[in-house]
């Protein structure tokens, strides 16, 4: 082979090897960029991108720039597994995502076996009960949120009967099971239990069933798009509320898609861009300026996840060590005084479950309005 050909070949090989230099720290986002959970996955991804850009602008983590790659699970567990394998083959420091609980369940064992820490967006209750020492949440599991909302239904709404509509996936099933347990403990009767499909567009029949139940309150637990469609159909058919939910029902995307139909819905939100906290307000403004839309709680999850990685690596370890990272995360509390970009004081327990303050909220005039701040469960 001539020198020119050799040079061209080597140059091509270097280009093909990608932009990451040997000194970069690799983070991989494996999440729902398309499919039925694309709303959540896109927010989470953009939160990550914002954090990575900020950190890299200040020199990176331990003077190494973050090389972020993104892999799309298409909200499909089969695709998620192949994408996760691709991620693992790239030898990342930490994996961020998935958000869809079904995809988390499908891939967590792979990451556990590879001993790679993963900060997930999934909220299904069982995820932290499966013994994965490398898994950490970025938002409450359902077993944390549901008792809070059940108390709200009992104490504030004074409802004796509830009609429930939920999405039939790991996220929805987990929430349904948790909620039923919490309602039973508070002597609140479940008078309708309507399951729907992920990606469903027509809810006429389901709303008819909810109407027939004639409950004191209607609990809606689905993904953002489906929540919006349910609310539109509910208003169309004159279904009487109050309409209650947890996080997704009151998210920014749901409000945007449902329009006026979202006004009046109430519920518990673990994280929200409308939290009355200056750091969160500042984050929301930065996010909106960067991406031209208002983030929902998933944007905050992605953002704070990257800063948690930065804090643990720089302040607790002083080195890149995946096993030590996972060990350091258990029992860790990061306060805004220690790392301002964590936004709200956050604690991880021994199984990767997260604890923060949370909020009760209502949608008024197309905006999420916080009505109460709820304390952390632990100290």
């Amino acid at each position: 082979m001539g020198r020119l050909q050799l040079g061209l070949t080597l140059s091509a090989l270097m280009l093909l090897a990608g932009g990451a230099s040997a000194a970069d720290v690799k983070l991989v986002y494996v999440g729902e960029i398309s499919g039925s959970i694309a709303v959540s996955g896109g927010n989470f991804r953009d939160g990550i991108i914002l954090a990575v850009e900020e950190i890299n602008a200040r020199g990176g983590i331990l003077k190494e720039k973050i090389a972020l790659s993104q892999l799309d699970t298409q909200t499909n567990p089969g695709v998620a597994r192949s994408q996760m394998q691709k991620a693992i083959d790239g030898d990342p420091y930490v994996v961020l995502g998935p958000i869809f609980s079904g995809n988390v369940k499908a891939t967590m064992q792979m990451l556990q076996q590879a001993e790679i820490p993963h900060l997930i967006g999934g909220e299904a209750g069982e995820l932290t009960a499966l013994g994965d020492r490398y898994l950490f949440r970025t938002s409450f599991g359902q077993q944390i949120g549901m008792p809070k909302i059940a108390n709200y239904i009992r104490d504030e709404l004074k409802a004796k009967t509830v009609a429930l509509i939920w999405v039939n996936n790991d996220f929805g099933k987990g929430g349904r099971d948790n909620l039923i347990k919490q309602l039973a403990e508070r002597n609140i009767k479940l008078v309708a239990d309507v399951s729907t499909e992920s990606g469903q567009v027509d809810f006429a029949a389901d709303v008819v069933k909810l109407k027939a139940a004639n409950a004191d309150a209607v609990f809606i637990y689905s993904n953002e798009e489906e929540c919006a469609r349910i609310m539109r159909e509910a208003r169309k058919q004159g279904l009487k509320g109050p309409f209650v939910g947890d996080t997704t029902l009151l998210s920014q995307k749901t409000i945007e898609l449902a329009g006026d139909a979202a006004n009046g819905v109430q519920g518990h939100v673990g994280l929200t861009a409308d939290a009355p906290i200056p750091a969160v307000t500042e984050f929301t403004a930065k996010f909106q300026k960067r991406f031209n839309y208002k983030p929902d709680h998933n944007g905050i999850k992605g953002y704070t996840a990257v800063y948690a990685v930065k804090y643990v690596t720089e302040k607790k370890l002083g080195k890149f060590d995946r096993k030590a990272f996972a060990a350091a995360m258990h029992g860790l509390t990061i306060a805004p005084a220690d790392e301002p970009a964590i936004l709200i004081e956050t604690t991880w327990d021994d199984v990767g479950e997260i604890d923060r303050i949370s909020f009760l909220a209502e949608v008024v005039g197309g905006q999420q309005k916080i009505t109460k701040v709820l304390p952390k469960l632990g100290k």
Partner: protein
Amino acid sequence: MADILQLLLAGLATGAIYALVAIGFTLLWQTSQTINFAQGEFVMLPAFFVLIGMSYFGMSFWPAVAVGAVVSVVVLGFLFKRLIVDPVIRHGVLPLVIATIGLAIFFKEAVREFYGADAQPFPPVVAAIDVTVFGVALAVQSLVVLAISIVAVAALQLFLNHTLTGRCMQASAQNPTVARLLGIPVERMILYTFLINAALVTLASILITPIYLAKFTNGEWLGLYAFIAAIVGGFNQVRGALVGGLLLGVIDNFAAAYLSSQYRMAIPLLILIVVILVRPQGLLGRVEERTV
């Protein structure tokens, strides 16, 4: 009683959309032996043309709809025929089927890539208010969707049966060779069919997207339901497509409400199987025989 009326109206409104889309299937099959498996994506796209007109070119809703409709008819009618159907159909029906499947994937991924994966709100054609009929609050949106669909189908039937062009189109569909001998410009009649199909899917898109939101995946389920409606009603009869669509919409809703919402996707497929086994030409279709 109120619930039954509610379900019936919602089912008829949804079924009317299936009918509009299914009629396109039957028209294309009758005139050009084209089975268009991108028909669902054809319904998905016009809404995005309107959204592009509003968000990127700053148009208000109705001008964007007008421009979107013109673009849809050109792209989904004229260009689809000239660039996809004409070159491929001479190789047979099966290559064209595969080409339309590829086209469906292309449209879907193009919207996802260049517009976004998120669902988008779409302005309603009429305000989201209710009217009370026999003591039941019914959505005006659903009534309007049903009324417009019925008027569109009636207008199409009038056009096909009572205008010279319409009768030429029917002649071209029944026997293109004899139609040519009689001086009918068969190729132009086939083009008109594609343009009418594009107009029908555009109408369906404008009616249904405010209710179901604009999303790149909308075509998947809509195309499937419309195809089933066309087969159930009769693939070679426009009236059959209408009946099939309305029937499917109503049965789907009642089955989800009173049988099982978990198995609602299976109901249309079961109906399809039963019709194919018992009456393969469809409820209103004609038996067709072909020489091999």
